[in-house]
């Protein structure tokens, strides 16, 4: 029976009609009571699914409000535990943790076994981050180093073997350079290759031309070209690389590729003349036979396609 009152505590007209109908309302009240009576009685037969529930029950449920409160409590407890744990660490441990995380990220970018799919984006992020943190070092890092030749061409960055010029001429025309270089310790500085080869045809270089910034094999700090390249690549040991060793022979595959040509021992010696290549290379339009993609044109705009002069 709907004897409950409305919110305002006032008995509404329906309740009054059902409880105290007037003479005119008697018929209506009787029909409404009849309607109400139809809502009383035994329930209908449940469907099989509902019957199972009514006979066997179901797992207990926890009201959602209680569940949410419990979950929030768990999350807050874990958060406090992490905070407390971190706060309890010493400064040294904290520094070690941060450094370890940074090293892990950096390691992903440089460790060979890591797939390129992962390395490249990570490396890009690190490079961009480095640009933000130290924008003045960009030229040296990315190996462009354009126009930094200077008199001695000694802008090579020993740390990565890529940057700087190493092609610099004394006349100041030295241009660009550092186009990739020295993967690991294969070569010290292929950049010198081009210049040196002009002066000393066939002088070995065998650089790993493709720009691989950030790798090891730093160039010597000065006179990049000639010395670095010849000193090693021209050596007999250097012949184990892919270079043909034919002086002055063009090796198309040398462009930007893995160290290609290697000089003979004599050429090695020739190539060992310090700094000469570095002086002439920029003025020569005929790059040497170096496989290094390091040589850039006078403007440093294009990677040198290294074609050696015929002997």
């Amino acid at each position: 029976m709907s004897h409950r009152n409305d919110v305002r505590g006032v008995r509404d007209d329906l309740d009054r009609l059902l409880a105290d109908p007037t003479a005119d309302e008697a018929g209506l009240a009787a029909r409404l009571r009849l309607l109400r009576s139809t809502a009383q009685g035994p329930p209908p037969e449940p469907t099989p699914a509902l019957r199972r529930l009514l006979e066997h029950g179901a797992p207990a449920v926890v009201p959602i409000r209680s569940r949410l409160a419990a979950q929030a409590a768990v999350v807050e407890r874990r958060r406090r535990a992490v905070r407390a744990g971190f706060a309890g660490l010493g400064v040294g441990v904290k520094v070690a943790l941060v450094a370890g995380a940074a090293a892990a990220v950096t390691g992903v970018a440089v460790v060979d076994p890591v797939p390129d799919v992962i390395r490249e984006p990570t490396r890009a992020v690190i490079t961009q981050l480095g640009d933000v943190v130290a924008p003045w070092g960009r030229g040296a890092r990315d190996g462009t180093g354009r126009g930094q030749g200077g008199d001695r061409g000694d802008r090579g960055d020993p740390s990565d073997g890529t940057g700087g010029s190493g092609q610099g001429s004394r006349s100041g025309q030295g241009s660009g350079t550092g186009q990739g270089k020295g993967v690991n310790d294969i070569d010290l500085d292929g950049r010198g290759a081009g210049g040196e080869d002009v002066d000393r045809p066939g002088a070995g270089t065998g650089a790993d031309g493709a720009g691989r910034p950030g790798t090891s094999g730093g160039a010597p700090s000065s006179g990049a070209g000639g010395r670095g390249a010849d000193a090693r690549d021209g050596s007999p040991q250097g012949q184990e690389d892919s270079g043909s060793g034919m002086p002055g022979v063009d090796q198309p595959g040398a462009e930007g590729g893995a160290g290609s040509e290697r000089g003979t021992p004599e050429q090695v010696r020739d190539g060992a003349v310090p700094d000469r290549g570095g002086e002439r290379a920029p003025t020569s339009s005929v790059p040497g036979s170096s496989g290094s993609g390091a040589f850039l044109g006078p403007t440093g705009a294009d990677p040198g396609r290294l074609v050696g002069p015929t002997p």
Partner: protein
Amino acid sequence: MGDLDSALTAARSGSADGFAELYRALARPVVTFLRTRGVPDVEDVTSDVFLAAFAGLGRFDGDAADFRTWLFTIARRRAVDHYRRAGRRPATQPLEPETDPRSVPSAEQSALAEIGDQRVLALLGMLSPDQRDVLLLRIVADLTVDQVAQVVGKRPGAVKALQRRGLDRLRRTISDEGVTP
């Protein structure tokens, strides 16, 4: 309501008795409500309504009165779904005394026998859907104005207005018919 509150508590704990008690207490009003809304297969739909309500107990937070409101909200949605699917105005379905297991007070039943259930339901069919919903939920589901407002998604004032107009319409109709109880 105390019994229903304890039944609701038992149902939350997974007790079959709690589910059964809730079903026994509320199934018949749901059946009547759905039937007057013209829903076919009323028993099956009623079972679906209860299954949905029992399955959603984890999301429900309230007492027995709130559960009753929630149950009829589900039932009304099912009726609306049927109404939309049918694409027509719901027709009232006459009661079938020989299959109707109701047990009502014999005095009241005999007093109203000459009027007949069909006339009662036909009377409700003269109301607008909103007026009929409000009166059914007030009379059959035994909900307060505020609870009905929650079920139909209207303000309590609007529900009161619908109820008043519906009763006036019924009053005029009966007066025009000249039927006396």
